[in-house]
């Protein structure tokens, strides 16, 4: 069983600052970059900031800032034998075709392969707790108005079949029990299990750039496309997520 709480933001070397995709539809590239950075922090104990612009410029589908997919970002990492650093190949938030400069720079992080996890929140939590943050793609409809707290939508308010925004799953937990005073003496609310997700809209949005989504109800389609890169051998020693 996975632990009851897990928060990779507390792990040493993990980059906690939140990127801002600005007017570029590159959430898919930022989520993939965040996944690679987190795995390097956990497995290699190295804090690397990789180039999102490389993923945007060198995407095989050439969608650039008009959209893309996390799995294509991972393909780009494989095709170019890794990612340059953010410092050398900085994010511009714009795209011009045929401007890929990946071969001009030394690579600071690379991956062995990438996988898609099962659409099961218990297994996703288990994988997350052992291996590190993963990317998920959700329906972003409710996020435009979101400020803080745990979103617990219904399929009517957030259709899980329509997903359009990739983010990084950083951990999970549950809210504390709440006590509501009533005439009869009070009722105790049940704790709400949640996922902790890192968005790419800057630190001024949501909970300092992060948000929480209900865990256990496929909220906003969170189980539809859970993807992660893998760095080393599959026999790598298990690591443990900070509670």
């Amino acid at each position, binding site marked *: 069983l996975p632990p009851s709480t897990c928060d990779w933001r507390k792990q040493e070397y993990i980059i906690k600052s939140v990127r801002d*995709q600005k*007017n570029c*539809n*590159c*959430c*898919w590239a930022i989520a993939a970059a965040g996944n690679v950075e987190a795995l390097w922090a956990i497995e290699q104990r190295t804090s690397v900031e990789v180039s999102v612009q490389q993923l945007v410029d060198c995407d095989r589908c050439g*969608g650039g800032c*008009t*959209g*893309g*997919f996390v799995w294509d970002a991972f393909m780009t990492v494989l095709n170019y034998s890794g990612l340059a650093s953010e410092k050398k190949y900085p994010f511009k938030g714009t795209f011009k075709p045929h401007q890929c400069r990946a071969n001009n720079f030394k690579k600071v992080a690379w991956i062995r392969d990438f*996988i*898609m*996890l*099962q*659409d099961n929140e218990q*297994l996703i939590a288990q*994988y997350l707790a052992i291996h590190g943050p993963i990317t998920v*793609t959700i329906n*972003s*409809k*409710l996020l*435009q*108005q*979101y*400020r*803080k*707290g*745990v*979103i*617990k*939508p*219904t399929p009517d*308010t957030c259709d899980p079949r*329509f*997903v*359009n*925004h*990739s983010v990084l799953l950083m951990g999970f937990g549950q*809210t504390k029990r709440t006590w509501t005073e009533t005439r009869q003496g009070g009722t105790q609310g049940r704790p*709400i299990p*949640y996922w902790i997700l890192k968005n790419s*809209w*800057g630190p*001024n*949005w949501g909970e300092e750039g992060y948000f*929480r989504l*209900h865990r256990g109800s496929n909220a906003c389609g969170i189980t*539809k*496309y859970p993807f992660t890169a*893998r760095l080393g051998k*599959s*026999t790598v020693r298990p690591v443990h997520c900070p509670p």
Partner: protein
Amino acid sequence: TSLMAQAPGPLPQELKEVFTRFQVRYNRSYANPAELARRVDIFARNLARAQQLQDKDLGTAEFGVTPFSDLTEEEFGQMYGHQQVPATALHMSRQVGFGPEAGEK
């Protein structure tokens, strides 16, 4: 005006104040008065929508003014989402992978 009559939310004067605070906080300016009026209208609709989401949410989430409160749902989707993943986009099935340690194919 028609919106004010039908949607819950702040009164016109309150709305003006809330919108001004939004503009200052998120450094928003608009090309002309017509655009400003349009954005105020969108802002008001979004506040009303946030209230509806608040009412329907089963968790502890708070919805309200955000950096995207002056955008329509369509604009927001175009600017900050990515393309929709159609059901047929992936020529693969779920059997492709969980990891060899978990019995992946």
